[in-house]
């Protein structure tokens, strides 16, 4: 969309706002609807919007596919890692209370923040990776399909 001046300006303006909103959803999920998954999707949508308007190469320059793939795995590992940490502390898998045994709900808070971060990272990565996979494929349309 080379000549869409209005779209390009508005998109530049919006992408930042969307990412900000994604962080709000990620970290305010305790108090209002939202959480890691939704934040991840919103974050991915910001990059998808950027890709739609400025082109796939531009957005892949900002966020290269190999980093996306690492992020996808990292999020899952972060989530599982919290659980493994609980196990190492001598409690059940995903027993966040172990992170602060004297004050259970504090431990729960810490655990929830970390696992939500894991969810967010994976979902962002996967959604962007799927978008790259679909958008990066040259269409093979016959003339009669149009």
């Amino acid at each position, binding site marked *: *969309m080379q000549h869409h001046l209005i779209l390009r300006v508005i998109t530049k303006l*919006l992408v930042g706002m969307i990412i900000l909103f994604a962080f709000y959803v990620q970290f305010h999920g305790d108090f209002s609807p939202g959480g890691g998954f939704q934040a991840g999707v919103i974050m991915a*949508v910001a990059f998808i919007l950027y890709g739609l308007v400025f082109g796939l190469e531009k957005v892949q320059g900002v966020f290269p596919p190999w980093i996306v793939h690492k992020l996808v795995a990292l999020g899952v590992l972060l989530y599982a890692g919290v659980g493994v940490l609980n196990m190492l502390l001598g409690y059940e898998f995903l027993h966040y209370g172990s992170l602060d045994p004297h004050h259970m709900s504090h431990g729960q808070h810490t655990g929830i923040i970390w696992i939500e971060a894991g969810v967010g990272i994976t979902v962002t990565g996967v959604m962007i990776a799927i978008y790259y996979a679909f958008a990066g494929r040259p269409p093979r349309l016959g003339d009669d399909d149009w």
Partner: protein
Amino acid sequence: MFLVAAIALFVSMILVLVRLYAGPIVYDRVLAANIFGTFTVLFIAVLGFLTGRPDFLDIALLYALINFVGTIAVLKFFRYRALGDVPQIERVKK
């Protein structure tokens, strides 16, 4: 008061839906879907007041955002027939 707004939005939604089903050209549908999205945002906001829990405006905000992205995706799709960087494709056709 909010009931009036909710009813008005409902009526508007139904009317817009008819346009969405009817077409006749795709841009009519895109336009109808876009305005339907705006009405949805307003409806959710109004519903928050109607049920006395107006702190769910995050959803409305999210809708406003997603709706815009959806519309842009549709238009990109129509303009270039792909979501990626393939403006040359349409030239190839003829």
